[in-house]
């Protein structure tokens, strides 16, 4: 109830009526999993370089409608961050303007719940753009895979440490490492984690609330 109220408040700020669908009730058993490559880790300052996303329907990752866009940065990418995300200026030759990219993304995800690994960060940085373009932050429901993993992990006590590193989760769940790390690949691997876990624990909360 409370959530609905907040969403309705949010909806009032919507500048463009074309995006009202974001607030509609989502179809059952459909999700979208996404991952962004960014210039840094500060949602306020940093920019999106690429977005990879896939739709999950029941037990399937719909590979035939994936999203993989590169975004034109407003300034040159510094060499330090190139080492991390491995996106070089030359990779951005086919990149699109941020506004076009975000609109394409919104069309792709629709009102589906968004699945991701430490998804809060991705949502925050995408919301920075949506606020500017349509007046609202991303209203979609969020599902954190590391949180589901945490819940399914058997622990001997409340305080036992659970390693939530992406690679550890992949290994523990025996998910195959597929290709190199880029936004789309990471989104697919995250989707696999989600598919393997989703029936084992309720998938409706965000693990870290920071």
């Amino acid at each position, binding site marked *: 109830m409370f959530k609905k109220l907040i969403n309705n408040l949010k909806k009032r700020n919507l500048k463009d009526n074309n995006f009202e669908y974001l607030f509609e009730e989502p179809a059952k058993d459909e999700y979208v999993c996404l991952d962004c490559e960014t210039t840094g880790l500060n949602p306020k300052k940093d920019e999106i370089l690429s977005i990879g996303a896939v739709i999950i329907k029941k037990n*399937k990752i719909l590979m035939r409608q994936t999203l993989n866009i590169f975004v034109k940065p407003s300034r040159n990418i510094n060499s330090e961050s190139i080492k991390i995300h491995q996106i070089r200026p030359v990779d951005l030759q086919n990149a699109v303007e941020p506004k076009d990219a975000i609109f394409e993304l919104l069309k792709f995800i629709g009102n589906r719940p968004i699945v991701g690994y430490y998804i809060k960060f991705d949502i925050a940085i995408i919301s920075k753009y949506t606020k500017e373009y349509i007046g609202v932050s991303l209203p979609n429901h969020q599902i954190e895979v590391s949180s589901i993993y945490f819940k399914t992990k058997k622990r001997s006590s409340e305080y036992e440490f659970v390693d939530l590193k992406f690679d550890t989760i992949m290994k523990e769940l025996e998910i195959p490492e597929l290709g190199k790390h880029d936004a789309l690949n990471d989104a697919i691997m995250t989707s696999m984690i989600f598919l393997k876990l989703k029936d084992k624990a309720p998938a409706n909360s965000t693990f870290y609330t920071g």
Partner: protein
Amino acid sequence: MSLRDQKSFLSKIHPFELLSNEQMDLCIRHMDIAYYPKNEILITPEKIPNHFFVIIKGIVHEYKEEEILMDYHQQDSFDSNSLIYGKSKNSFKVYEDLICYEIEKDIFLELIEQNEGFKNFFLNNLVNKLQTLKDKEYKSDLSSFMIAKVSDTILRKPCIVETGTKLIDAIDKSMKYSTSTIIVKKDNEYGIITDSLLKVKVLLEGRDLSIPVESIAIFPLLSINKEDYLFDALTLLIKKSIKRIGVINTKGELLGILEQIDILSHFANHTYVVDTKIKNANNLEDLKDASNELISTIKTLNAKGVKVNHISSLIGQLNIKIYRKVYRLILPKELQKDACFIVMGSEGRNEQIIKTDQDNALVVKDGIDVEQYRPYMEKLTETLIDFGYPPCPGNIMVSNPFWCKTVQDYKNETAKWIEAPAMQNYMDLAIFFDSFSVAGDKELLINLKEDLFNKLHDKDVFMAYFAKATLTFDTPSTVANFMTKTYYLDIKKGGIFPIVQGIRSLALRERIRETTTVKRIKILEQKKAIEPQMANELLEAFDVLNTLRLKAHLQKLQDGKKLNNEIDTHTLGKIERDLLKDSFKIVSNFKKFIIYTFRIDKIL
């Protein structure tokens, strides 16, 4: 994974690499990744899915009623039959959490229509499928084609002369070495004078034969290390358009000259060399040397990619020559003609490549005193053991009086076997039926076999028991579980023996004198005792199983391990695994055929 990664993943899976770029793109545009937990049922006769599965990770079992028929692993795909024929007799169930690609049915069928190779793979019967896989195996395994080292060839001793030597003296020396190549040594460097060089630089230019060698020699002589692969040597020759190179050791010393013809004939002629050695051996010591070369011959032929069936017949021929020579060297001449030295069991069938044991016997003409043969037979067995033919654990050797007697005594023995059979008798009969004469009077053996055929006429119940041995061991339906550390299969019990025994039973009933399983299969097909398709499938499966066994044997020899018939399925590549699985499927079907043909269910 991004589209590019999917493409590279798929193109590693046979037969997807046959797809063109556009076809691959089409395929990728129409597939999803799906996840199914353990025990999920994917296909049943009632529920045919709308897509084709390719496993990214996990295991799926195919069931017929309760029986597991096949297991599918990473990179395996299924089930084309459901899609092509719209129905499935079997069920597919997830055995270990499955992540897989699902290719849309329509697209899968479209690809089959568009791509001949793709179509052949999915539509063909097992034989063609086995053939396709094997062709691929040989193609992808080119490196094994020539793993022979330069040092494995017979090197020509070089004719080396110092600088300053008169050309005429050098030519004279080369004649003594019977070579057309003169090597000129200048300090630490070598140069070469060939016949064609003499023609061009001396004859055509009208030079005198008293000039020093270095004035026409070509420096430096190209050379290759003796530890290099023969393949590299050949490549170098072709690349430089030359016919010969020097072979050096790690210190840079010239060991010999390698000619193009040596390389080419190395592969073809190795057996020839052994053959000549056997022929020239005048005493047991020389013969032993020749027999010791057999292993390296086997390795060479195997590395060259020669079909195992051909290797075994080649090795069989050489073995027979060794046996014959041993017989002639040990037995006094007057005794030789009144007896027949026979090899039996796998040796009789010519199917023992790496020696694992010996089964042999002597048949003596009626009316001849057997006792005078005994001391020679003991010596014969001793000699063969010394040659590296391991003794037979069942003591089926000429030194055993039971396996050294007259024709009539053998006839009495086989009559006993048939009238009052026990398990040991079935085994003895099986071994004896595979006998092959290697030396002496072969009419004696022909006579014995004729007698055997006549005795077995109309003995249906006996034949049913004889054939029942085909079912002695289980044939695995699954090949490997990747979750376990190792997975050993006895490939002889599970695959080779059932084919040998089943075919042997049919051959005995059909009075076939040929002893090798392969020839028996072909004759059975001619006699319409088995269908052509079954014959082809058995030939292929037999070849696959023997090849895998030979490979494991060679590996064990190299590791200095004891030989057995186990193979570790974890060491098999994807294609070998597929070949093995399909072969076991053929063996299982064949067992059913044997049960039906010999009415074994009536005696069970």
